[in-house]
């Protein structure tokens, strides 16, 4: 178990460092520039240098904050993310705990992110932070519902909450072929769940400066940052399991296939961020309640009907 924990922490850190580098490179190439080039090969060590800088920075605690909650928030956002890695099936024999409620555990723990954002926003005693926190809660609740419903339509087909069973059920055809609408809905909701553009309302910098983490500096800010990228990895991993056949592939070892698919989805999410403008808060919420949730329900009903008929 301890080996697994160390493994997870190592994976989380290396993955976050890689993703931040990747995001910079993706952004740069979309924007006609080369991105970081100086530190290491094509700037590969740039994020390591940045991490060292962040750790070395002074941790400023503003005077008027609600101290215990303010200090707890970055930890609360980061710990649940670690738990999620327990059940992700990287390869047939590379699952730390193949729980029979794996997918439920993931959704349950990823919902905790909202709590931490609320804690950070409220305790900062800053109006911009409170705005960010309130928006974030409304948004995450609104987008969690369609996310769960789309996942449910897959679970209906498999008949199990077990992630390895879901992968096993895709031995003939990936679920993305059978459930394209569900995949689309899932990607949209996942982007919103991770607070990524065009749904980055909680930290919309042109309106709210930096949203809920305005008052955080140094490694405390770093933890929020780390959590965002790790969350991105988790939602992409779940998408891979649910729709893209998990570790399935040819010639290459299963774990490589799994990571290729995950990073492909992450690339897609990054692509969104650097291409779209931001939605307005009310448009975002009504999009979730009036479009995504009904669509997800219809999809679920059709799935159930099809299973009953065939």
């Amino acid at each position, binding site marked *: 178990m301890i080996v697994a924990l160390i493994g997870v922490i190592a994976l989380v850190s290396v993955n976050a460092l890689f993703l931040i580098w990747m995001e910079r490179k993706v952004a740069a190439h*979309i924007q006609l520039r080369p991105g970081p080039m100086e530190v290491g090969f094509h700037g590969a060590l740039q994020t390591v240098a940045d991490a060292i800088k962040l750790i070395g920075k002074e941790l400023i605690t503003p005077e008027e904050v609600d101290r215990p909650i303010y200090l707890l928030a970055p930890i609360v956002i980061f710990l649940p993310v670690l738990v999620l890695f327990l059940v992700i099936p990287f390869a047939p024999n590379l699952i730390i705990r193949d729980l029979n409620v794996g997918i439920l555990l993931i959704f349950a723990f990823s919902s905790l992110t909202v709590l931490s954002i609320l804690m950070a926003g409220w305790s900062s005693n800053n*109006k911009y932070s409170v*705005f960010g926190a309130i928006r974030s809660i409304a948004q995450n609740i609104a987008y969690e519902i369609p996310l769960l419903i789309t996942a449910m339509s897959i679970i209906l087909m498999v008949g199990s909450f077990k992630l390895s069973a879901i992968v096993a059920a895709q031995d003939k055809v990936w679920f993305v072929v059978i459930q394209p609408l569900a995949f689309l809905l899932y990607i949209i909701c996942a982007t919103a769940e991770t607070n990524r553009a065009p749904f980055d309302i909680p930290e919309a910098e*042109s*309106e709210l400066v930096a949203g809920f983490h305005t008052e955080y500096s140094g490694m405390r800010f770093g933890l929020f940052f780390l959590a965002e990228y790790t969350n991105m990895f988790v939602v992409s991993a779940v998408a891979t399991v649910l729709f893209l056949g998990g570790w399935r592939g040819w010639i290459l070892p299963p774990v490589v296939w799994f990571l290729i698919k995950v990073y492909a989805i992450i690339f897609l999410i990054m692509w969104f961020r650097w291409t779209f*403008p931001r939605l*307005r808060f*009310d448009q975002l919420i009504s999009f979730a309640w009036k479009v995504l949730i009904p669509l997800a329900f219809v999809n679920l009903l059709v799935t159930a009907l099809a299973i009953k008929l065939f």
Partner: protein
Amino acid sequence: MMLEPGIEEKTFYLNLGPQHPSTHGVLRILLEMDGEFIANSEPVIGYGHRAHEKMAELRTYQQYLPNMGRVDYLHALAYNHGYCLAVERLAGIEVPERAEFIRVITSELNRIASHLLWFGAYLLDLGAFTPFLYCFDDRENVVDILDRVTGSRLTYCYFRFGGVRDDIDDEFIAGCRAFITRLRSRWQDYDDLVTKNVIFINRTRDVGIITPEQALKYGVTGPCLRGSGIPYDIRRSEPYSVYPLFDFEIPIGERGDIMDRYVVRLREMEQSLRIIEQALDKLPNGPIMAEKVPKRLKPAEGEVYAAVESGRGEFGTYIVSKGDTKPYRIKLRVPSFSNLSIISELIKDTLVADMVAILGSLDLVIPEVDR
């Protein structure tokens, strides 16, 4: 926002600025918020006050020229033009035709640079980061072209009383033509990726509507006024320089919302390209400076007002001369100031996100507001 229990407060105050990412300068807007809605607002200006008008009283006419590039640094050449125009009218200086053509060409190039910068920065306000870099890539061309002839990249001081400082050469003309081709090839991309983007349309359609009556009441000018459907452009309605020689349209909007202002600016860039093209074709030979402009200008007693169309609207210079080498008083009528004054009315009862979108759509240059 930590309220005492039992005390009911419906609204609270939010201080937007003076340091805030979307004010693009040191503008402060005091917002009285009702949740996410703005109940009342009040812009507070003056953080970047540099006493430009007072400085004019202490300097000779020539010494005041460099100030003009710093009032509105984004369309500096229009301000050069406006001031030179006023002084030339005051002192009765005739500008040779070639100089007028060069003035028009450089000024229009600068207008394109200004609009491109607005386009990029505005989308940045709406959360789209990438167009910013594309616009700067295009704008870089203009800046390079102008750098060749004016010697600076931002705060130009190129026009002189009676002409311009340096003549343009073949390389400048070739650069301009290459730029025209390049920018024209970009319109399609901008339209496909931004104008037709559904999120962008939702953010800008029917948001921040300025009615023609409101616009006239507040003295709004420039693309903001034309977006409301009033075809008022100084280049056409009170022609100066050689603008009457060229064929160009005044694009106007219909509804007066953000989208209309956006479209007006995009189409204005195309019209500027047309003007430049025609000016390059018709460019006459001859001197670039009027003869016998005295080193120490001493205009006769009198008053003069001259207005030019800057990227943001009507820029007027009002000079009172008492027959001295220094102006007695200069009043700068800057468009951003009038355009800003409408903001409180526009953002009433809108969301914070809309406020950012509306503020950005007015294309304010805050140092110009403060002067």
